[in-house]
């Protein structure tokens, strides 16, 4: 018996000790990724779904196409691609990527998978799909380097765990996110141990015209018709600014509740930077 559900912008079908997840977009009868999704973002969503259902996945076999470091930072789930010391037989879970925008999470000893394909799919606009694909290709070129406020890969990695997993610092009086260094007495703040609940209230929002977008987004902003950013407050106190995912048609209002999913933010020098983006709560 299977039951398809929406999860972080994807469609999931849950079965015993396994999960089928797919993009909700179809192009020419094929399931295709949405404008800021790929197998890494979907793998993270799948692991997060399994965690939400009580499965204790500590390590997993990942195919080369998935960014293992990003999966680890976002979910805490290790893999041999990320950690050379991990013994092959310690890993009890697999992720298998399909030919289309689908993947399966299952125990390594599972013998067969039997999922009923989700039906709540949407045909993606062909031009939009093509243009976004081209833009991402150009953006990932080694020569594509933003200047001005250049955020190096090293600088990105310094905050990547907090960015991808909402891990925060616990101090007397509350939680701090994004992480900070020293406190007002000059002491070192603790490392991030508490994970914020990935739900927040919109305190303000804007839609920036494509012409005014930072250079990191200059190829895609015109296709998207601008960039939509929210300032939100998490229930536990901290606030943050987040882009809205590229695959939702959403007109925000102050007071709305949103949740978050890992998506591609931008790419340069051949490296995709991932981060959380906001989705309206259905």
């Amino acid at each position, binding site marked *: 018996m299977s039951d398809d559900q929406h999860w972080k912008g994807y469609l999931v079908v849950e079965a015993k000790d396994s999960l089928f997840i797919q993009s909700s977009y179809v192009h020419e009868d094929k399931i295709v990724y949405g404008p800021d999704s790929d197998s890494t973002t979907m793998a993270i969503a799948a692991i997060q779904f399994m965690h939400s259902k009580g499965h204790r996945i500590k390590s997993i076999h990942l195919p080369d196409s998935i960014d293992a470091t990003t999966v680890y930072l976002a979910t805490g789930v290790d893999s041999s691609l990320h950690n050379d010391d991990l013994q092959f037989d310690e890993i009890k879970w697999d992720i298998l990527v399909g030919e289309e925008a689908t993947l399966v999470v299952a125990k390594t000893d599972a013998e067969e998978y039997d999922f009923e394909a989700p039906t709540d799919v949407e045909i993606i606009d062909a031009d939009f799909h093509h243009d976004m694909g081209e833009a991402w290709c150009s953006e990932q070129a080694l020569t594509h380097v*933003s*200047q*001005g*406020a250049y*955020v190096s890969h090293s*600088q*990105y990695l*310094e*905050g990547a765990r907090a960015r991808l997993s909402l891990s925060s610092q616990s101090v007397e009086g509350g939680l701090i996110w*994004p992480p900070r260094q020293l406190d007002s007495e000059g002491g070192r703040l603790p490392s991030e141990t508490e994970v914020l609940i990935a739900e927040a209230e919109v*305190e*303000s*929002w*804007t*839609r*920036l*015209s494509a012409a*005014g*977008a*930072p*250079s*990191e*987004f*200059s190829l895609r*902003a015109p296709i998207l018709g601008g*960039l*939509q*950013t929210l*300032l939100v407050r998490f229930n536990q106190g*901290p*606030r*943050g*600014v*987040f*882009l809205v995912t590229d695959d939702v048609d959403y007109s925000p209002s*102050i007071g709305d509740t949103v949740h978050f999913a890992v998506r591609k*933010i*931008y790419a340069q020098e051949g490296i995709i*930077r991932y*981060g959380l983006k906001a989705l309206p709560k259905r």
Partner: protein
Amino acid sequence: MVDVAVIGAGQTKYGNHQLGLKGMWAEAAENAFSSVDKNFDPRQIDEAFIGSVAFGGAQLGNTAALMTEHSGMDGIPVRRVENACASSGFALRDAWMAIKSGQADIVVAGGIEKMNDLSAERKRFWLGVSGDTEWERLAGLTFPGTYALMARRHFHEHASSHDDLVHISVKNHLHGFDNEHAHLRKEVSFEKANSGFMVADPLTLYDCCPTSDGASCVILAADHVVRKFTDDPVWIRSSGAASDRLALHDRPSITQLVATQKASQSAYSAAGLTAKDMDLAEVHDCFTIAELMATEDLGFSEHGKGGGFAREGQGIRNEGSVCINPSGGLKSKGHPLGATGTGQAVEVFKQLRGTVEDSRQVRDAELGLTHNVGGSGATCAVHIFGRERNV
């Protein structure tokens, strides 16, 4: 303690300049030198502080030494001051402190920015570079977006609206119309300013300052040498400065700038004055919402009442309670980032000496204030100027 006076001040026209960095700086310095009433020679200058973000103009490092080399100030100690859009506001503070400390008698504070020599694509690289780039820019925010978030929240928390911002835009275009140094010299109707292209919802083109080239230069002197140069000095009554967290999301409130509040309280306190004493104020209106919030944070209106202040025309020259942005502000006069802070001081110097165009003169101006903000409020410098020395 030594008192500090402005003995000369000058600037270029702001706008799209044919001149490069050296030419613009030379023009601003020349105008400042010639504004000194008597006996001035640039070789008398002890030290210089020059604000610049180094946006364009091909000189990212050692900008200040290049500027002084081309303006008769060879060999003096000089440095570039960078605090985003507040660069020369802080250069002015540094120059004031150099004299206050007794280490120098005559000091130049200035600023320069060349912004229109870059292609549209290269300009884009610079968008939002003075915010918290790692978190804000990667969430798609540049300063129009950041200030748009503030505006929408202000509308939500207080009885303000976009119409209030339109009133600010109309006023600043009115004030800048007769300013020979202004970038955008055109009067704009309420209807026109209310129908601009949406830049960052809810801010339109008419809520945003232009991208300008320009340079400005102010000459300061210690009290014991002032009379050698002029019988009509403008005194710096006080200097206040503060900082705040770079990112909006790290601040307790996004509808007020704590750095402005702290800097102005410090300046008012040191001068023994209040907002009510000011005849005019050059405030940092990079966006119209920034002026609305500044009128509150500087104490010209109560917190949350800046919309009403604008709507009632309280900042209009010779009509309201205090003239806000007699030069036209960043909105009309223009915003060459590093030059803006000392450019504000040039305007106040001239207003207090009665040397601006007759049509722009604030009547009976005795006290004026400059308010220069870096980024979305992470840094702020406030200076109070007066015809009289501190009592």
